[in-house]
């Protein structure tokens, strides 16, 4: 067993992430979004939902340290985020596996980056553990090109989990998958997140996905021209998920409050989220 515990230090309820007045402008007069503020608790699963172009991915990239905001700040554990860090794992929409490496080596690359002084054996143990966590033990020595889209995304998830980050950032991880595969991996992700008490920030377009996975759903509005001038995009609402935390995809629509929540989000997306 590797010396580090599989579960990141958790203290549920404590604030892990604080975003204050974040803004991004490519044209100074018309920021894509401005004054975006929210917080995330440790162990919380937050989904952000909104139409294309509202700036979700930019927010995620700022949190990942891959992009810089033009205004505002983001703090994790009280320290400002200024660049990429191993404490924040990222799962990319396009899985971003290195095609010349096998599954094992792809994940080992991440593990070696996280713990450079680990022995080869320790690294391999960690790799095997997380590959098995996503159920890909049989494909561990295959190259990504030999895997299906869903399996590749699983490897991407395993890679992000394997470095045991303080927070996980998922950029529409299931966007490119078919509905069936998507469902299976959602269940899997939920199981792993519950098991590891991971803090997750995830972008999605899928309302049901958000309802299934998230403890809280941030509804984001696009920037728009109004009669009183340009209104930059922002988080319009933060909806707490009232459904019990132990829920399954199959039983989701039987839960009390599911339809009310779903209708609320869909109404938002249809009528309020986008400029007319």
């Amino acid at each position: 067993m590797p010396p580090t515990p599989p579960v990141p230090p958790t203290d549920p309820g404590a604030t892990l992430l604080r975003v204050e007045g974040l803004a991004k402008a490519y044209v100074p007069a018309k920021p894509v979004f401005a004054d975006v503020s929210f917080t995330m608790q440790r162990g919380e699963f937050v989904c952000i939902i909104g139409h294309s172009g509202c700036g979700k991915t930019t927010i995620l990239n700022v949190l990942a340290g891959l992009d810089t905001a033009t205004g505002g700040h983001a703090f994790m554990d009280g320290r400002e985020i200024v660049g990429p860090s191993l404490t924040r794992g990222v799962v990319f929409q396009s899985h971003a596996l290195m095609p010349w490496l096998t599954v094992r080596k792809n994940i080992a690359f991440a593990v070696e980056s996280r713990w450079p002084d680990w022995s080869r054996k320790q690294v391999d143990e960690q790799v095997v553990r997380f590959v098995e966590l996503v159920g890909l033990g049989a494909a561990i020595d295959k190259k990504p090109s030999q895997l299906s889209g869903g399996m590749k995304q699983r490897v991407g998830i395993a890679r992000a989990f394997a470095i045991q980050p303080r927070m996980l950032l998922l950029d529409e991880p299931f966007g490119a998958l078919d509905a069936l595969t998507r469902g299976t991996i959602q269940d899997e992700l939920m199981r792993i997140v519950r098991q590891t008490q991971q803090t997750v920030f995830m972008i999605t377009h899928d309302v049901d996905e958000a309802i299934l996975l998230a403890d809280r759903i941030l509804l984001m509005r696009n920037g728009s021209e109004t009669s009183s001038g340009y209104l930059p995009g922002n988080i319009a609402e933060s909806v707490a998920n009232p459904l019990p935390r132990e829920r399954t995809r199959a039983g989701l629509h039987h839960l009390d409050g599911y339809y009310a929540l779903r209708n609320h989000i869909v109404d938002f997306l249809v009528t309020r989220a986008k400029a007319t």
Partner: protein
Amino acid sequence: MRRSLNLKAALLSLLLLAVFLGIWQVATMTTAPVAAQPTLTPEQIEYQKMLGKNPEPGGQAKASGFPTPAEMGATAWRQLSNPFYDNGPNDKGIAIQLAWSLGRVGLGFLLACLVAVPLGFVIGMSPLLHKAFDPFIQVLKPISPLAWMPLALYTIKDSSTSGIFVIFICSVWPMLLNTAFGVASVKREWLAVASTLEVKPLRRAFRVILPAAAPTILTGMRISMGIAWLVIVAAEMLVGGTGIGYFVWNEWNNLSLTNVIFAILLIGVVGMLLDLAFAGLQRKVTYVE
């Protein structure tokens, strides 16, 4: 299905070879000595010989004629059965000559690798350097490598080293451009993965960018090697001394067409083997996305 296609292709190749050899044989057949040839006086024979002609019966057609396939075969056999002899500066075995050429190509190519790959890396990583270097590369690239020869001979003052320099200068461009292109077109997402994992620049260069760009770099190397092998023959004809190019030139001066043809064939075969070797390397580093 595929096997039968290969078999058919091989048979057709053999047929083409046979036809080619047949035509060659027919075209170079010695015409029977004309019976009505007037008998020459010893003085006339002497005179003919001084003019470079062979007045012996049948010798006329043979001396000025192109070698026959059989003569070629004999020469090839003679050369290949004793490839390592060394009878002084102008008479060395074919393997020794080839080794000189391959050595020069190898050395020049290696030096070019050492310059082109790191420089291409830097140029590929930095749009600023790419723009800054571009005009120089664009001007230097189309220069025939042999045009450098006088300058090289004057500055280096050594013909063999000048040959190596010419190989260097012709190999460097395709490798440089391909490396820069390969490095510049490494997928952003792989670099993003590397930065979220806080991978140090050197490790990123060797573990992410190099493998990602390797197929493109190898393509550049393959092109460079092809050009280097083309250029070495011309370069050695120019600087003389040793090497397969010099061998061709020397045998031309000896009017030994069989040796010239043999060398031409050999240059082709070695060039093909070099290309095959690089194709193999290329396959090794190529990945499927």
